[in-house]
C-alpha cells in the first residue's frame, strides 16, 4: 500500500452496513486495541475554477469536525500538510507558511479557491491501537451525503439537494504501519466480503454530482476535419467560444477572481477576430451585428480588466519591496490601493448593468445562432477549412514579416505595437485551426510565435503599466487623495518602467530575427502556402 515516496496510500473504500462494520470490529478486537467513537464531520474540496490543484494531482480539503483544519496531499494519499484554520482560504495568501503550502500557492497564483464539493458524514470511527495506544490504522463506517457548495458562502454551505451515498466503509492507513493495514484489509475481505478500492473524494464523488474535475480549460480545443467545409468549422469554433464565454459569465458577475473576466474577454476577442478575418465567408448581417455587439461589450469589460490588471500588478510589486514598491511610502501605497479599489467598483457597475440587459441576452442568442450549422453557412461551405485557413494564415504571416522589416531596438513604439497586433492575429488563426494540421508540423510554429509574443507582450505590458499610473495620477491629484510624495512615487515608478522597456527592445529584435529566419519561413510556406494550390 506504500507509494513511491514511502507514503502509504490512504483510503480504500467499500460499501457495507452496520452489521458488516460490527463484525469487522469484532475480528479486529482479537488482534488490536480498538477505540470506537461516533463522529460527524463536513469535508469541503477546494480548487480553482480551472482545477489547477486537480491537474497538479493535489487535493486540498477543509475538514470540520471537532476541530477545523485544512489538509493537503495527493488524492488518495495521506496528507502532506495539515493546518488549523478559522475560515475557508480564498487566496494563496490565506494559506499557511511552509514548503507544501507555498507549492500550492504557486499553482493557485491569482485564482480564487472555490468550494467545489461538499461531503457530510456521520458514523463511527474505529482506531486500531498499538500496545502503546498509538493509532496505527483507522476504519470508518459512515453515512455520506454530497452536495455542491455555494461559491460565495464563506463556510462553503451546501446548496440544493443532497445526494446520499449510503453506508461507506473507509480504511485509512498510517505511515510506517503497512503490515497492520494489510491485516485490516484481510479482515475486511473476510468479514465484509468485499474488495475495497482506492478512494479519492473528487473521483469517487464527482460523478454523483455531475462534477467534471479538470474538464474546464481556457485553451481553445476544437477537433476539426481539415477536409470539412469551412462553414462547418466556423460553427464548431463559435460553439467552443460561446461555451467558454458562458462558463465564465457567473464568475465574472460575482467577481470571484480576475481570471473569470480574463477568460470571458478572451473568448469574446477570439470571436471578434474570427468575425473580422472571415467576414466575407460568414453569414450576414448576423456576423456584422455580432461583431458590433461584442465591441460594445468589450468597451465595458475593458476598464474592469484594466483595473484587475493594475491590482494584480500592485500585488506583484507588494511582494518585492526592493522593486517598484520601494518608491512608495506606506501611506502613499495605502492611498493608491484605496483609490484603485474604488475605481474597480466604479467601472464594474456599468458592466453589471449591461450583463443584466436584454441587449446582452440578444448578443448571446445571436452568438449561439452562428454556432448552428445549416443554410446560413452556405458561403463558408464552398471551400474546405484547410484551404481557407491556410490562405489566411499565410497572409497573416506575411503581414508580420512586412511590419517587422527594418524593425530594430530603436524603432518607435507604435511600430513595435503594430507587429504585436499582427502577431496576435496570426496566433488566433493558428489556435482556431490547429487541429486541421499535423501536430508535429504546426506545434513548433506556435511555440516560435509564442516566444516572439512573450517579448512583444512584455513590451506592451510595461507601456500599459506606465499609462495606468499616468491615468490614475490625475484623479488622485484632483481629489486630493495623493500628496506630493505619492506623485513623486508614481513618477519614479514610471521612470523605472521606461528603463525596463528599453531592455526589452533588444530582446524583441532578437526574437524577430529568430521568427524571420529561413527555417521558420520555409516551415510556414510548406504548411500553408502549399495548400493554397
Amino acid at each position: 500500500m506504500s507509494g513511491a515516496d514511502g507514503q502509504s496510500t490512504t483510503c480504500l473504500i467499500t460499501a457495507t452496513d452496520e452489521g458488516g462494520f460490527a463484525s469487522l470490529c469484532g475480528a479486529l478486537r482479537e488482534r488490536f486495541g480498538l477505540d470506537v467513537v461516533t463522529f460527524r464531520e463536513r469535508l469541503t474540496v477546494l480548487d480553482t475554477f480551472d482545477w489547477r490543484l486537480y491537474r497538479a494531482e493535489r487535493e486540498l480539503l477543509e475538514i470540520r469536525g471537532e476541530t477545523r483544519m485544512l489538509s493537503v496531499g495527493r488524492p488518495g494519499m495521506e496528507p502532506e500538510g495539515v493546518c488549523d484554520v478559522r475560515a475557508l482560504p480564498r487566496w494563496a495568501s490565506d494559506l499557511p507558511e511552509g514548503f507544501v503550502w507555498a507549492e500550492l500557492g504557486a499553482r493557485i497564483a491569482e485564482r480564487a479557491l472555490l468550494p467545489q464539493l461538499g461531503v457530510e458524514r456521520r458514523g463511527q470511527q474505529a482506531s486500531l491501537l498499538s500496545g502503546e495506544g498509538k493509532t496505527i490504522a483507522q476504519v470508518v463506517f459512515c453515512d455520506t451525503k454530497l452536495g455542491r457548495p455555494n461559491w460565495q458562502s464563506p463556510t462553503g454551505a451546501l446548496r440544493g439537494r443532497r445526494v446520499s451515498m449510503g453506508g461507506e466503509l473507509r480504511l485509512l492507513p498510517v505511515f510506517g504501519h503497512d503490515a497492520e493495514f494489510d491485516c485490516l484489509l484481510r479482515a475486511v475481505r473476510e468479514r465484509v466480503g468485499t474488495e475495497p478500492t482506492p478512494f479519492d473524494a473528487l473521483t469517487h464523488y464527482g460523478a454523483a454530482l455531475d462534477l467534471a474535475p479538470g474538464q474546464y480549460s481556457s485553451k481553445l480545443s476544437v477537433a476539426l476535419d481539415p477536409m470539412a467545409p469551412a462553414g462547418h468549422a466556423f460553427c464548431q469554433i463559435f460553439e467552443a467560444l460561446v461555451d467558454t464565454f458562458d462558463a465564465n459569465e457567473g464568475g465574472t458577475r460575482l467577481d470571484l477572481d480576475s481570471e473569470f473576466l480574463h477568460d470571458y474577454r478572451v473568448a469574446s476577442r477570439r470571436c471578434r477576430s474570427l468575425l473580422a478575418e472571415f467576414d466575407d465567408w460568414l453569414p450576414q448581417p448576423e456576423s456584422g451585428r455580432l461583431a458590433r455587439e461584442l465591441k460594445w461589450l468589450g468597451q465595458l469589460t475593458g476598464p474592469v480588466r484594466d483595473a484587475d490588471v493594475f491590482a494584480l500588478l500592485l500585488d506583484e510589486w507588494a511582494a518585492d519591496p526592493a522593486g517598484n514598491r520601494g518608491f512608495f511610502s506606506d501611506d502613499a501605497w495605502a492611498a493608491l490601493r484605496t483609490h484603485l479599489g474604488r475605481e474597480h467598483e466604479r467601472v464594474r457597475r456599468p458592466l453589471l448593468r449591461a450583463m443584466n440587459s436584454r441587449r446582452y441576452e440578444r448578443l448571446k442568442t445571436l452568438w449561439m445562432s452562428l454556432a448552428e450549422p445549416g443554410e446560413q453557412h452556405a458561403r463558408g461551405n464552398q471551400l474546405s477549412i484547410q484551404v481557407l485557413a491556410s490562405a489566411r494564415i499565410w497572409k497573416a504571416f506575411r503581414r508580420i514579416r512586412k511590419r517587422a522589416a527594418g524593425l530594430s531596438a530603436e524603432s518607435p513604439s507604435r511600430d513595435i505595437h503594430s507587429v504585436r497586433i499582427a502577431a496576435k492575429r496570426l496566433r488566433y488563426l493558428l489556435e482556431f485551426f490547429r487541429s486541421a494540421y499535423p501536430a508535429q508540423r504546426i506545434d513548433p510554429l506556435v511555440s516560435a510565435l509564442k516566444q516572439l509574443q512573450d517579448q512583444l507582450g512584455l513590451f506592451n505590458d510595461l507601456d500599459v503599466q506606465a499609462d495606468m499610473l499616468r491615468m490614475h495620477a490625475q484623479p488622485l491629484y484632483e481629489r486630493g487623495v495623493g500628496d506630493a510624495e505619492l506623485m513623486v512615487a508614481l513618477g519614479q515608478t514610471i521612470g523605472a518602467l521606461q528603463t525596463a522597456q528599453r531592455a526589452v527592445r533588444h530582446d524583441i529584435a532578437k526574437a524577430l530575427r529568430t521568427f524571420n529566419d529561413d527555417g521558420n519561413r520555409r516551415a510556414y510556406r510548406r504548411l500553408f502556402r502549399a495548400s493554397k494550390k
Partner: protein
Amino acid sequence: MSVWALFSIKGGVGKTSSAVNLAYIASRAGARTLIWDLDPQGAATFVLRESIQGEQHGKRIIQGKRSVSDYLVRTNYPGLDLIQADLALRYADLLIAKGDRPRRRLAQILSPLRARYDRIYLDCPPGLTLTAESIFRAADALLVPTIPAPLAIRAVEQLVEYVDHHPKVDALVAPFFSMVDNRKAAHRQIVTDEIAGGRYLDASVPYSTVVEQMGVRRAPVTAFTRRHVAARAYRTLWRAAEDRFQALRR
C-alpha cells in the same frame, strides 16, 4: 527548513514538554514537522505513544549504515512525524566520536530530511557533550528552557559564551523561562528583568499540573486542551521563537 534544538545543560527543566508541544503546534500551523527524541530516557517517545527502540536503531543511524528516513514514523497527529529514542543513545558520544568529523555528524544525518520537513525539533539530552556539540552544529536555533533561578541563568550565560566563541556554530540561542511559579516573587522578578534585557524570549511556560498530565494522557498539552494557560503559553512561545528566528534571518 530549520532545525530547532531544545537544549539545556541542566536536566528536568522542561525540554521534552516544550519540544513535544512546539512540534505539535508547528504541525497544526501547517509545517511538515519531525521531532527526534535524542534523549535515551525516551520521554518524548513515550508521550507520543511509541516505544523506545533497541540499540541497533540509533547505532545504525549514527554509523551511517541506515538512513534516518528508514526510521520515521507518523504520530497520532497528521503532519507530525517522530524518530523514536533508543538505547544506543546512552553512548551516543562514543558512536559519534568514532566517525569522521564527529561534530558535523548530526548535520550530515539530517541532511536528507531537509527537503521533507519544514521544521525539525530535537529533544536533546542534558549536558555539554560531544553529542551536544554535534547538535549545535546541526541546529539553526537552540531553544533553552530555563528555570527562573540564578544558577540556571548562569548556565545559559555559559552556553551563550560557548556558542559565541565557536565560529562554526551558527545557531540562534533563544532561552525562555520554563516551569515558572508565579506565586514566587523571585520567579516573577527574574522573568520580568531578564525578558526586559532582550535575550530571553517574551514567552514563559508556567509550572502546571496540566503539563505533567502529558505523561498520563500521552499527548501534547495543546492536543487535549486549547484554553488552559499552559496551552496558551506554548502557543505564545512558538510564535515568539518563530518571530525571533525570522527577524534574525532578515
